[in-house]
């Protein structure tokens, strides 16, 4: 049996912490629990967990502070779990470096999927495993060829423009993860690109028309309204 991943659950509600821990244990993860921000900080350095599940409403400090200070020294994956459901809360946490954001209430299947995705992304240095080895990323009928700068659907090259390819390539690199509008814009057009996401929206709409059968029923490119975009993750 291989080494079990250790997950730190930072959550002050006993019942929630308990059920998260139970479901993770039964799926082969080891868990440790912290109830306060301060406790979480000390456990982070003493236990070296592989992933953190972080609630934002902690009794002693805001979870975002924990995230912020963690990000100053570590790129450990963090899945934020919060009752705050407004888009700007999500965008705020993601831009601070959270790997994912789950709004309470959430299902166990969803939690496990997000945890799996977040852990997979740290296994290899920072990039997608498949891309590192083969230079391609495949999900369903969609293949992104990073060497040839091509995107293939059912083996056919869909002719993307340069910025369209760069968007798809970026989403592919972090497949399964939501990338915020701001993040994509900064990665593509530099840190001084304006905050207007209209150009990105138009680009995305064009990509959808080239890749998806029905742009209103996407199979690959998903929108998280008000937050950003996510590319489907292969099994």
């Amino acid at each position: 049996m291989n080494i079990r991943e250790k997950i730190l659950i930072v959550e002050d509600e006993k019942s929630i912490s308990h059920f998260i821990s139970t479901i993770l244990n039964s799926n082969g993860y080891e868990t440790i629990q912290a109830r306060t921000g301060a406790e979480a900080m000390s456990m982070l350095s003493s236990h070296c967990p592989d992933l953190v599940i972080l609630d934002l409403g902690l009794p002693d400090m805001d979870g975002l502070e924990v995230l912020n200070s963690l990000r100053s020294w570590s790129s450990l994956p963090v899945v934020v779990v919060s009752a705050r459901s407004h888009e700007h809360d999500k965008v705020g946490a993601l831009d601070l470096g959270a790997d994912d954001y789950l709004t309470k209430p959430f299902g166990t299947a969803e939690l496990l999927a997000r945890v799996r995705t977040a852990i997979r992304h740290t296994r290899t240095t920072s990039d997608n495993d498949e891309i590192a080895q083969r230079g391609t990323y495949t999900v369903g009928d969609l293949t992104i060829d990073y060497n040839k700068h091509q995107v293939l659907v059912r083996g056919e090259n869909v002719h993307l423009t340069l910025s369209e390819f760069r968007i798809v390539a970026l989403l592919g690199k972090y497949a399964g993860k939501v990338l915020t509008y701001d993040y994509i814009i900064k990665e593509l057009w530099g840190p001084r690109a304006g905050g207007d996401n209209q150009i990105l929206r138009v680009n995305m709409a064009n990509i959808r028309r080239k890749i998806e059968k029905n742009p209103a029923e996407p199979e690959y490119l998903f929108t998280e309204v008000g937050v950003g975009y996510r590319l489907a993750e292969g099994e």
Partner: protein
Amino acid sequence: MQSSKHRSPFFSFSARDFAVTAGILACAIELCVILSIADSIDGFAYPIFVLAVLLVSRLTTGYFFGILAALFSVIGINYIFTYPYWAFNFTLSGYPLTFLTMLCVSLITCTMTTKLKQQERIRAESEKEKMRANLLRSVSHDIRTPLTSIVGVTSTLLETPNLPIAEQRQLLEDARDEAQWLIRVVENLLSITRIGDARAQITKQPEVVEEILGEVVQKFRKRFPDVSIRVAAPSDLLFVPMDAILIEQVLSNLLENAVIHGETTTNILLSVHQEGKYACFSVQDNGKGIPPKELPTLFDGSMKRNETPAGDGKRNMGLGLSVCMAIVRAHSGTMEAKNMGAGAEFSFLLPLSEEELK
């Protein structure tokens, strides 16, 4: 937010009120000057300024400008229009009476105006209060049933340890379904807090409609995997100004209603098309349709559970639909429901550009 708008009635100061006051007093002075040139008798200044004070008190908010106008008038009349002209003479007989008259006119008019405005506000507020009370009643009702079931299921499981596994499972599934129902009620309530009060503007941003439809359908399929749903969006890129989260809520509610209240629904068509200066969103199902006598009162949330015959175990769609209506209204849109040949259609229009809103 409410409190910031709610200023003290005595010292509310606005540029508009100041301009009104200055304008009316200037007119009064002008009129007196013209009259004094045309006719050299004294005395017309008083009635004109009393009228001016009355107008100022009526047209401005609070007491401040009315009293200011009264003071100004008394001093002005004394200075300009009574002998000695262009000089003060506070020893004039009847002077205190003039002053008192002006002050009384001003105070009485201000009080009446303020009261009138207060009453209007109270009426608007009580209407909103009534709506809120209706909503609360319907929500509490909606919440009680699933809670009863959840508490019942969990205590049953705790107290009867040797229940067959299959039965335990059935009970737990029921509890989960009920909890999920509660989640949706709470989501609707959250939407209402997002709309805020009637005067507050929602924040609209141009959104690509297919992105909204895509997300809604994805969530719908997770919840109702057995119902087939088709989506039709315009092939051209269509931006519609909206609060995306709220519109998603509207569409989710309509889709959910199509399944739950359509009862026999197996097919749903979710479509958007452009209709002149509007985007038309529509949800069509092949269920059993809307009972004709419920059609007229469908959106006002007044439908009571006990009025629907026999269906009392079923949740009313009052909350979901009134939330839809409130959201569409907040977008300056319109909404309608009708029965089709087979099933029902709910559709709503959203204006395509901000200018249409005015």
